[in-house]
């Protein structure tokens, strides 16, 4: 167990990280992600208010739809990445990272200038469980009458799981199909146990409980950013390959101007994915060397259990950011060869 953003969480369960990772890709994994924060935004101006503070276009959402987005600084860098859920035209739910919940809450409140919007930090009211993998739907369907196959990716509905009312969302952080269930905080244990039971957790092909280490290796393989690594207040959305959630044409939002400028001028550095091509594992914060010069840094580096490779993300100058570019990583004093590859590293079969 470790302290993760102020929460006591398991790094792994007895089966171990590799088994947790592989089982999630082949059957199902269950993650207790109740540490995530939730901020409730209500009122006639809810959409306009959140649209001003985030990079993606909230006006494009319909009821029951969610979008990946970022809270941006005036410099166009990232305060946090988050999901914006539209429950109704006057009701949004923002789901943010655990380590940044307080920061985000203060930031959002500080930008409330009296417009008709009601803000509430409801993080402690919610628990959140993520069931991910090809078997996730069939397992969760045993516990709910909501026709899960009708919930499209990045959409959600209200329903009950084992009789507990909550939000069931077709989202996740693993690159697999799956669902995230938001429910009252005091029902976490009940839902956890019921899902493990419904998913036959004792069987080698059943659902497996997963810790933080597997959560990290899964999201890395799937090419997803982790706040504090690929994105933070020093990285712009465009540098971080998040141009796709940076809707410069939607109207004004915090950080829009420097991002528009950077889009016109081009970025100077870029986030790239790489694969280690000789023996060795690249780790977070190790230096990237090209032609004998230190040119960048690894943001996340780890073995990829499903791909059976060692992979990572790094920021490099744009001139070295092409797929195929050979780089070296300084692994504790030894220069280890790597190559820039396309991301995501892993894409689930259709």
């Amino acid at each position, binding site marked *: 167990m470790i302290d993760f953003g102020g929460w006591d969480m398991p*790094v792994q369960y007895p089966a171990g990280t590799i088994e947790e990772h592989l089982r999630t890709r082949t059957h199902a994994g269950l993650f207790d992600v109740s540490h995530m924060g939730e901020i409730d935004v209500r009122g006639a101006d809810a959409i306009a208010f959140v649209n001003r503070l985030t990079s993606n276009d909230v006006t494009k959402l319909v009821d029951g739809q969610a979008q990946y987005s970022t809270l941006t600084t005036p410099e166009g860098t990232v305060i946090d990445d988050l999901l914006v859920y539209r429950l109704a035209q006057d009701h949004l739910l923002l789901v943010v990272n655990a380590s940044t919940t307080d920061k985000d809450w203060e930031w959002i409140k500080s930008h409330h200038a009296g417009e008709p919007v009601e803000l509430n930090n409801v993080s402690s009211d919610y628990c959140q469980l993520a069931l991910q993998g090809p078997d996730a739907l069939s397992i969760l369907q045993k516990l709910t009458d909501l026709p899960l196959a009708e919930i499209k990716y990045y959409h959600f509905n209200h329903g009950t799981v084992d009789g507990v009312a909550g939000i069931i969302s077709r989202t996740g952080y693993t690159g697999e199909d799956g669902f995230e269930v938001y429910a009252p905080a005091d029902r976490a244990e009940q839902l956890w146990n019921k899902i493990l039971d419904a998913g036959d957790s004792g069987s080698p092909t059943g659902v497996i409980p997963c810790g933080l280490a597997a959560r990290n290796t899964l999201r890395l393989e799937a090419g997803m950013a982790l706040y504090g690594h690929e994105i933070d207040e020093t990285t712009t959305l465009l540098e971080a390959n998040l141009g796709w959630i940076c809707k410069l044409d939607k109207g004004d939002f915090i950080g829009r101007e420097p991002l528009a400028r950077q889009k016109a001028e081009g970025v100077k550095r870029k986030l790239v994915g790489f694969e280690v091509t000789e023996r060795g594992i690249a780790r977070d914060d190790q230096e990237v060397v090209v032609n004998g010069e230190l040119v960048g840094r690894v943001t996340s580096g780890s073995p990829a259990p499903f791909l059976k490779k060692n992979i990572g993300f790094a920021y490099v100058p744009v001139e070295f950011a092409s797929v195929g570019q050979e780089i070296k990583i300084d692994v*504790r004093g030894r220069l280890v060869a790597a190559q820039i590859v396309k991301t995501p590293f892993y894409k689930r079969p259709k």
Partner: protein
Amino acid sequence: MANVPEDLHYSKDHEWVRVDGDQAIIGITDYAQNSLGDVVYVELPKAEEEFAANEAFGSVESVKAVSEVFTPVAGVVVKINESLADEPETVNSDPYGDGWMIRVKMSNSGEVDSLLTAAEYEDFTKAESE
């Protein structure tokens, strides 16, 4: 409960030593492999490299972390376990057998006497877990 074979010597860094004449075979204990989790990479020295007692001779990597491994006795490496390059997980499945890491010719065979016995190591790990 971790396995602690009677016939071995132990260090407080969770390495074990099996004495074979004037040579010592070294690896990490069951307690250590269990704490580390799945071993995905083992870095070993080359034959003929020399190490002082308690010097790091290599490292063991799990998915999440890198840990150095230390030789409890001084000596010159005569053999390394090459199979760990392709099968690092052997350290988890057989830490005292096929998961051995290096074999050294000891500079001073008497050094093993200052290592922990199985019983002492067991007490040590119990205290560490509390």
